């Protein structure tokens, strides 16, 4: 079977808007860990209270799938080292949010910083598969207060669509090394990573394992090191990219920015995020070498096709980096990550159970934001009820599914509610009037104080709606955010 039409069909990215300023981390912790001052440059992306790896993944996937038929997907891989659920298919939540068909192989891939790169390599090796595979890698990374991880890490997601069509890039070859080199680890009952000395990680890890994988990859592909135009390798150790490139025989000019200064290391997402960034800059004929380190190394070599020039519009890494909000509030970051026991008041106490029967029956309405459109009168409405809401119609069972998630709208009314409990008060909510019909009274996210009024254009984002600490559950819904 020809592989000429098989490869990367699209890609997407997402970073949380909030960028915690590293100097705020250093300032708060200088009394205990003065060494952090040396790392206090730039900013890192941090999840809002209502974001996690599932919601990050949905955003990256939407970016990747814009203009593509979601029903062509036969496989979805969600790769993350921070999946919210240990048991409940996380990819299934993403699939429901994206309204993928149920005839779908969904895979949660975890266990290593290479979960994303391995998933991508596996998808690209499966060129005989009939449908398309979406590989989404996302991480909402946890770290202890005052740790170097807190400085280095970032939160984010990237998605790559693999299949037959007009690929933007084709895989030339891939090679994986698996070595039980434990540079960091986290057992299932622990919240945070435990890391070993950086100098050892550099000398015995990156500098030996990555070059071995790259050498094997180049040998397999028959491509000369000098022919590589983009070298993507996540890693926050000082100048590690250049050092490894040199060891591999790659030119220093090929080494791509590891985004440490602007978003931090997004863990499992980072190999795909750097690949996406490379694709945004690439031109036809470029060769991209992706190397992902972690208990071994995945090395993937791509050739960029002429289709890259006609690639559709997307937010991408560039757009995600630009959509930023500086955040210097370290205390709020600690609170969002349960690193400080904040007094939340009695209004935070009410029990919030989710009845699984109710969620299941209404999963498309809730997780997919599916409403109805009346076949009799054309009225678009949410939620879809048995009788049409139009008083001149009121037809029974007359509505077809109508998806709101990709529709734009404007604010009809709003408030900033300081009374109701929110992890990040005030709560912004109000009525959204959708372009093309339909309205919803709904929560907003990412509203900046003073930058909201009637008429504000908004789009929908998939977010955490409520947490149920008593039973350890999180439920999701859609919110409006400034477009």
């Amino acid at each position, binding site marked *: 079977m020809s592989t000429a039409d098989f490869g990367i069909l699209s890609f997407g990215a997402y970073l949380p808007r909030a960028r915690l300023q590293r100097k705020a981390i250093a300032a708060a912790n200088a009394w205990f860990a003065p060494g952090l001052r040396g790392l206090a440059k730039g900013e890192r992306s941090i999840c809002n209270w209502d974001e996690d790896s599932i919601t990050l993944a949905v955003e990256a996937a939407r970016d990747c799938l814009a203009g593509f038929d979601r029903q062509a997907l036969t496989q979805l891989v969600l790769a993350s080292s921070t999946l919210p659920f240990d048991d409940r298919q996380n990819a299934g939540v993403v699939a429901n949010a994206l309204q993928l068909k149920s005839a779908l192989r969904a895979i949660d891939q975890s266990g290593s910083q290479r979960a994303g790169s391995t998933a991508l390599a596996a998808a690209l090796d499966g060129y005989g598969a009939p449908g398309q595979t979406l590989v989404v890698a996302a991480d909402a990374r946890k770290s202890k207060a005052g740790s170097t991880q807190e400085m280095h890490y970032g939160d984010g997601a990237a998605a790559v669509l693999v299949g037959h069509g007009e690929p933007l890039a084709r895989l030339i070859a891939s090679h994986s090394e698996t070595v039980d080199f434990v540079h960091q680890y986290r057992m299932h009952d622990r919240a945070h990573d435990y890391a070993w000395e950086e100098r050892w990680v550099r000398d015995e890890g990156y500098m030996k394992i990555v070059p071995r994988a790259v050498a094997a990859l180049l040998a397999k592909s028959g491509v000369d090191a000098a022919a590589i135009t983009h070298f993507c390798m996540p890693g926050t150790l000082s100048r590690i990219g250049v050092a490894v490139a040199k060891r591999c025989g790659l030119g220093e000019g090929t080494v791509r920015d590891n985004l440490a200064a602007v978003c931090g290391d997004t863990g499992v997402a980072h190999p795909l995020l750097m690949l996406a960034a490379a694709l945004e800059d690439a031109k036809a004929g470029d060769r991209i070498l992706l190397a992902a380190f972690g208990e071994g190394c995945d090395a993937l070599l791509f050739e960029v096709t002429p289709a890259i020039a006609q690639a559709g519009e997307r937010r991408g890494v560039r757009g995600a980096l630009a959509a930023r909000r500086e955040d210097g509030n370290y205390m709020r970051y600690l609170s969002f990550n349960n690193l400080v026991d904040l007094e939340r008041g009695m209004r935070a106490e009410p029990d919030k159970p989710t009845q699984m029967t109710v969620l299941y029956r209404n999963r498309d309405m*809730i997780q997919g934001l599916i409403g109805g459109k009346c076949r009799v009168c054309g009225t678009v409405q949410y939620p879809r009820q048995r009788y049409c*809401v139009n*008083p001149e119609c009121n037809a029974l069972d007359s509505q077809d599914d109508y998806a709101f998630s990709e529709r734009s709208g404007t604010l009809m009314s709003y408030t900033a*509610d*300081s009374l109701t409990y929110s992890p990040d008060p*005030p*709560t912004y909510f109000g009525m959204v009037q959708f372009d093309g019909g339909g309205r919803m009274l709904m929560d907003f996210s990412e509203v900046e104080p003073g930058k909201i009024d009637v008429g504000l254009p908004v789009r929908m984002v998939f977010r955490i709606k*409520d947490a149920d600490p008593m039973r350890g559950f999180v439920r999701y819904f859609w919110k409006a955010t400034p477009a």
Partner: protein
Amino acid sequence: MASGIKDKVVILGMGCSKFGERWDCNAQDLMVEAFEEALADAGIERKQIEAAWLGTAIEEQHLGKSAVPLAMTLRLPYIPVTRVENYCATGTEALRGAVYAVASGAADIALALGVEKLKDTGYGGLPQRGRGALNDLFWPNLSAPGSFAQLAAAYRAKHGADKDELKRAMAHISVKSHANAARNPKAHLRNAITEDDVLRAPMIAEPLGLYDCCGVSDGSACAIVCTPDIARGLGKKDLVAVKALQVAVSNGEEVQFDRWDGSYFATTRIAAARAYKEAGITRPREQVSLVDVHDCFSVTELVTMEDLQLSPEGTAIRDVLDGFFDAEGAVPCQIDGGLKCFGHPIGASGLRMVYEMYLQLSGRAGSRQLGAPTWGVTHNLGGFPSQNVAAISVIGAYGA
């Protein structure tokens, strides 16, 4: 349309507890306080009551479910007793049950009692609570002030109102209600405040500050109603009659259909039109003597003036600032202090409004008595601007 209930039912007696932070009381004590006053006012014995309605909304905070707590507390002799709940319009719903029972001929004398014990939550404002299994999955994370604050944004957008002028009109509303409540010994908040106090108060839900929000109170109110013949037979003179009782409930059009603009209450407009028709009021702005509306928030009162046809649409800010609804104005509003200052024990509020109408029409309103009122209108609202229950009553002199 049905012939309506005008003059078929009169108020035989009413009672109302002191509203406020009643740390000393259980809900049952408040019920007895209101009932004793009503019973004495009616001049009957409890065994003459043939049917009763209990209105209470957040029963899990105090009484628990069903009508049994009313029957047990008042020792009602195995009569039919019904508990009703319809958001914050619960009190008027209890009255409607009793009034309809009498109007239908099913009972000669019936009782309606509303009660709420809200100050046992441990914090200010209404208790946080679930909104239903499915609703909890998609409704916004809203508080009552947050949902009503939406009115201000939409009203401003529709009428091109100036933000500061709207806020000043809202402030005027609260200042007026505090001034009125100072003359009401049963009111929860009796302190006078200034416009500056309102404008400088902490923000609760933009643009509603602390003084734009009504009190959360403990309290109970009670009505005993009967046929005009029964009342006359008991020697009552100058009867106060129920002229109209109308309720309109949202069916989802506001929140789901693209017609409503968010700046008014669709339900109030419909219920008011029906109530005026039932009562025979054709020119509300000229005919209504006084009004007690559901001023849960200042902005609610403002838009309600238009919904009740007391101000032409888009002119409520002007009327409010001109003092049209002040105690000395053409149509005094919240002469008893309203929800804002009399307080808002949910199940009791609708009945408390009628209590003030009853006192005013009987000339028994003490230092806040208005001249010679002929038509009193109450407006009791439950829910949120986008989906709610509006309950309107018209109270007037029997036969007028």
